[in-house]
């Protein structure tokens, strides 16, 4: 079956682990990440006409997901309800995600990543975690490829310093 014949719903489900991981990178909370993925999936179905079925689905979905996150946070940012996510210990169920998170925070690379400015962290996450190309990252963030490269290069230099590489 050609890729174009696979229902969009199934293609979204197929990259669910990637979507969840990227959502978690943005919001740092498992419960919010799931809401965000669901919201992005529904928006994707609404705007399915904007998807070029011949291209990879990840960049298109990531862009929708990131925009959904911006919309989610727009109000809270100025209304005083913003959660200091790093300070808010997450309440999780019995799925072990708290353990996972604790392990992540012990990870030197994750900790170093968390200290970078948002602008740099988001290009690192897309290129190095989610394995998007420079061009795809530019499309997701809505910025020129050259800007992706300059941010990414500065981020790598800063990360190398923090990790003692070189």
């Amino acid at each position: 079956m050609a890729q174009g014949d696979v229902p969009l719903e199934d293609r979204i489900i197929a990259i669910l682990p990637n979507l969840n991981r990227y959502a978690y990178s943005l919001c740092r909370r498992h419960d919010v990440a799931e809401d965000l993925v669901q919201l992005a999936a529904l928006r994707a179905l609404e705007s399915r006409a904007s998807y070029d079925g011949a291209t990879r689905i990840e960049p298109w979905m990531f862009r929708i997901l990131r925009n959904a996150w911006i919309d989610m946070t727009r109000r809270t940012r100025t209304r005083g309800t913003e959660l200091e996510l790093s300070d808010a210990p997450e309440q999780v169920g019995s799925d072990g995600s708290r353990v996972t998170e604790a392990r992540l925070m012990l990870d030197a690379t994750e900790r170093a990543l968390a200290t970078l400015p948002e602008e740099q962290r988001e290009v690192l996450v897309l290129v190095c975690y989610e394995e998007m190309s420079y061009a795809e990252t530019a499309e997701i963030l809505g910025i020129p490829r050259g800007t992706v490269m300059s941010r990414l290069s500065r981020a790598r230099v800063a990360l190398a310093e923090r990790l003692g590489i070189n």
Partner: protein
Amino acid sequence: MTEEDDRQDEILMAYADGELPPAEASALEARLAAEPDLAERLRLFTGTRDALSAAAARRAEAPLPEGMEARLRAAMAGAAAGRSTDNVVPLRARAATAPAQGGSAWAPAAIAASLALAVGLAGGFILGVGSGSGPTPPPLTLAALDPGVSDALDTVPSGEDAALEDGRTLAAIASFEDGAGAFCREYEVIAADGRRTVSVACDAGEGWDMRLALDAGREAADGSFVPASSLEVLDAYYATTGAGAPLPSEDEAARLADRDR
């Protein structure tokens, strides 16, 4: 760091990431063989790449929350079948200890349902979002903002409140650019009786064009604010108009100063 150094870093990084075109890559390889300093600098980019890939692999081991796939399938099926304003999607049971701020008060299915409402708004509209009790709200004039509101929008920074002369309060929420690049502000007007309206108005040269106004009900006794039901429409509005992220306060101040001229 000179601009030239930056440029060189970007070339080395693109090489480490496999993003350099073949011709440029061969040219760089010739230089790398001859210049030890350059080769050492390259290790910064290959080293960070390796460290991040390893961290990403550790993250990938984390399992999806139990039942997440089934819930997402149900949500998508519900959106396709219903598109009703009822929340037909079995939203995931939340932890009993959900944040007191109501931080996760989003209802994706209902947002999808209300998208249809928000598409194609040319001028302005108002929607009463069933606040249940209370008298019928007074009619609002949409075409022209009253001068008090308009003046406040010209000056009040987001995050601050301003008392209007008639006893109402205007709370500036955020500024952003819409998809067409117009400077827009989201704000709330709180009447003396506590009834609140959430609005978006965009720069129209001389004044402000109201694009959206939502009856957000009354402020609850506990001081909690907008019920999620009215914000779904707001979210849908943002999603369909290509609104950008909130402007940082210095950018907002600059845009307001520009208007003043």
